[in-house]
């Protein structure tokens, strides 16, 4: 079996089928049993004729990161692809159109920029597409045909996959796609001499047909649906918009309600309203929208009304870099808003975890009557992964509200002070369970009072929930060196995949390095972290922000020196960078 692990990038302009070619390739590879991680990017906010890149890592072993450099670049558009050349490896393969309908202007041809060592395969994409389907629309499929022929992919298997994908489309669409693919495949097989060494298994053993191929946004949406989401209110904002678009389609099918609001304040307001009314509700946004929601986050904590906010982080403060990756909203997620406001922050580290995190978030929010922030990021939102369809959530996650018993209703105290901080909650419609809920400090019945004792007791009660939550969050993920070692890499969110990969590579080189990440950041499993850190001389915290927000959070907890790797490149964390830092520290 081939142990192939390659990164393929398809680059073109919008409308050239770049993203769909990437999707077809990813889907096929997934079906063939490969692990894939893909990432589409289109820098322009408005797609127009802008540059699109479908980036996909395909591997026999589990993929933790999308890979920083590419092995194969498929150029559907020359001038856009030129700017993608710097990430092509030195021995990288270029597939390009060597017979475009007219000459490129000087320096606008990708073939003009090749460096020694790179392996170009010129394929008459345009010509073959026209031959196959009468127009040039199928260039993307011709290119995939060339790719398949070059890298040992079975023509039949690929065609079957394409047919499944286009199953519901018109026959002419299916035929044109298949014909274009075959044209590219046959021409390449007959005319191109292969000089690179990448080769897939032509007949892999573990074919997987039923895998989901979804990005983090979709995983969040699916998790939320599985967890019984009833209302989603959203306002368009990159990179979270896709969650809204998916739920707009899917929620009504399940009897739920989706609405697009006038602003993010209204979104979280609706979520709070639905939460108050006893239904599971969620909103999704990014930094700027999350800022607008800050006041409501305090109300959720204070009035003890369940609310889930997905914050898909993007770059920079203010409007910042809407289409770039960063992990710089940790501080506002943990500490945003006024007052002592304990909130739950869940930061999944992978697309798989996005699903679980959404289930967990809705469960915790309902059970603990509090605010849960699901902190994802541009990369997770857009990173496409293949995964086995997750099993339905454990029923205990689905109905978590703790309602008062009949006796308690006789003298009902909505904000009863309890050992675990959870006060039994009635939902509207329950006779005799009426109460008054407020963002003012209040007594056990909800009546606004401001005395010292009440505020102290109530603050303590609200914080006690965290002690309780800590008991039921997933264990931190600890990998790498198991004994006493040199460097412990502590990471969070989507950087954890790169950290884990870097640690695997470092261990292969004989370094004693371990990796720690926790999906739940608040309440934080500090004891587990301390135990982990005690095994290593130095702690390294890699994260995609400038100020080291997570490092600042854990530094007071651990008794080891904390080194930082902070970057604001706008790109996902790469294992290469962490590995380099590990070697520097070593």
């Amino acid at each position, binding site marked *: 079996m081939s142990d192939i692990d390659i990164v393929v990038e398809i680059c073109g302009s919008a409308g050239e089928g770049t993203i769909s070619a990437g999707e077809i390739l990813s889907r096929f590879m997934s079906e063939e049993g490969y692990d894939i991680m893909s990432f589409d990017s289109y820098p322009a906010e408005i797609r127009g004729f802008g540059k699109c890149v479908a980036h996909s890592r395909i591997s026999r072993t589990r993929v933790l990161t999308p890979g920083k450099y590419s092995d194969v670049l498929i150029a559907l558009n020359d001038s856009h692809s030129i700017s993608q050349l710097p990430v092509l490896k030195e021995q990288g393969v270029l597939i390009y159109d060597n017979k*475009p309908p007219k000459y490129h202007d000087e320096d606008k041809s990708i073939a003009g920029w090749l460096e020694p060592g790179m392996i170009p395969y010129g394929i008459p994409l345009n010509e073959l597409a026209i031959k196959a389907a009468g127009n040039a629309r199928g260039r993307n499929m011709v290119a995939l045909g060339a790719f398949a022929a070059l890298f040992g992919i079975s023509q039949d298997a690929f065609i079957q996959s394409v047919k499944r994908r286009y199953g519901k489309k018109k026959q002419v669409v299916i035929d044109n796609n298949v014909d274009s693919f075959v044209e590219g495949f046959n021409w390449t097989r007959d005319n191109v001499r292969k000089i690179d060494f990448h080769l897939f298994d032509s007949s892999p053993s573990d074919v997987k047909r039923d895998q989901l191929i979804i990005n983090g946004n979709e995983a969040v949406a699916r998790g939320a649906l599985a967890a019984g989401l009833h209302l989603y209110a959203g306002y368009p904002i990159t990179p979270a918009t896709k969650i809204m678009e998916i739920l707009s389609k899917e929620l009504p099918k399940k009897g739920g309600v989706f609405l697009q609001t006038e602003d993010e304040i209204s979104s979280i307001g609706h979520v709070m309203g639905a939460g108050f009314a006893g239904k599971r509700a969620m909103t999704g946004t990014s930094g700027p929208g999350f800022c607008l929601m800050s006041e409501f986050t305090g109300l959720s904590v204070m009035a003890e009304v369940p609310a889930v906010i997905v914050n898909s982080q993007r770059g920079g403060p203010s409007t910042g870099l809407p289409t770039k990756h960063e992990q710089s909203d940790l501080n506002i997620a943990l500490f945003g808003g006024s007052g002592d406001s304990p909130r739950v922050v869940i930061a999944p580290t992978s697309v798989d975890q996005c699903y679980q995190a959404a289930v967990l978030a809705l469960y915790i929010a309902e059970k603990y009557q509090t605010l849960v922030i699901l902190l994802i990021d541009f990369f997770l939102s857009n990173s496409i992964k293949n995964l086995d369809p997750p099993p339905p959530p454990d029923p205990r996650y689905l109905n978590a509200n703790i309602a008062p018993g009949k006796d308690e209703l006789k003298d009902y105290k909505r904000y009863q002070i309890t050992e675990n901080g959870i006060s039994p909650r009635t939902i509207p419609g329950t006779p005799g369970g009426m109460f008054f809920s407020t963002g003012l400090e209040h007594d056990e019945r909800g009546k606004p009072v401001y005395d010292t004792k009440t505020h102290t007791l109530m603050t303590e009660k609200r914080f006690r929930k965290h002690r309780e939550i800590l008991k039921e969050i997933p264990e931190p993920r600890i990998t790498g060196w198991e004994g006493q070692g040199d460097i412990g890499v502590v990471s969070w969110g989507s950087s954890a995949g790169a950290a884990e990969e870097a640690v695997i590579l470092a261990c292969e080189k004989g370094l004693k390095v371990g990796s720690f990440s926790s999906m739940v950041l608040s309440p934080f499993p500090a004891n587990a972290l301390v135990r982990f850190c005690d095994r290593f001389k130095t702690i390294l915290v890699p994260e995609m922000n400038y100020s080291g927000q997570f490092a600042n959070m854990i530094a007071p907890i651990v008794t080891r020196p904390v080194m930082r790797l902070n970057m604001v490149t706008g790109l996902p964390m790469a294992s290469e960078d962490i590995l380099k830092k590990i070697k520097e520290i070593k």
Partner: protein
Amino acid sequence: MPKNDHYVIIGNGPAGNLAADTLRDSDPDARITIVSNESMTYYYRHKLTEFIKGKAREEDLTVRPYSVYKDKNIRLRLGQQVDKIDPNKKIIYLKHMETVSYTKLIIATGASPRALPSVSNFSKCLNVLSTYSDALAQIPMINKNKTFLVLGGDIISFKFIRMLKDMGKEVTTLLYSEAFWPFSLEADMAQQVKKSLSDKGVTVISDDHIKSVKKSGEAFDIVTEKGLNQSFDSVYSFLGMIPNIRFILGSGIDTDRGILVDDHLKTNFDDVYAAGDCAQIYNPDMKSYWLSIGWNNAKIQGTLAAQNLLGAHKVINPAPQKILEVEGLKINTSWWESF
């Protein structure tokens, strides 16, 4: 006033590189582009046989690494073939469908193995060794095969034969009367060569011609006019070199065997120069054109072409004592002396 000269040099051999260096030295800001159809950077072609033997590594072949071009701000376009030139519009058209405009052009494309009309019927069965990528592609085959027929007559064929013998191969050579090989005119020297080859264990056939070459399985069946009928694992041809000027034909730039230039290395277009193996240079004294071959000539000519392009009026020294005449052409023989 900002200069917007764009000097384009076609060819990344000694002539092209010396021309580029000369241009860069005197004009630090100009755009300079070298276009080469080889994917390897500037390398010593005569070390290819050592490379095949495994005695030289890739880095031993390179005259200078790719980074030097970046440092000198010379745009090196490797693996890119020129399709045609329009000297009136001052545009070159690249095979991969890109146009490049120039203000001044130096053509230094060198020469490549010649296919004689008499072998054209079976040229598909003949191997040539001229470039790095030829060598790269042929190494497995050369290592595997045992018996070789070399249609030879030029100096490269003798280097190649020596290499094969060093590798322990069985070699037969057919000294080709039509080969681009000046010494064949002098019978005594030909005799000397024949003897020296025979001494090395090479079977030498002369005064004969190939009649047919047929592929038979992995091997090739050879029949000569004089009745030789034998099978070889590989057949190579070294029948002299021919200037690489195909892409210029029809452009309006005057050509004959090579690109016709005056003794300043200028073509019939003011902004187009040629240097090295591809150039056919006028000698006013002899009232005739001469072809030059060889590394050192190329270097000298590349430098001179660049100087003249920049405004100098230097005349190329034809080095008459080394010019021989073959097939009505005068040929500078300095090439093999440098080997």
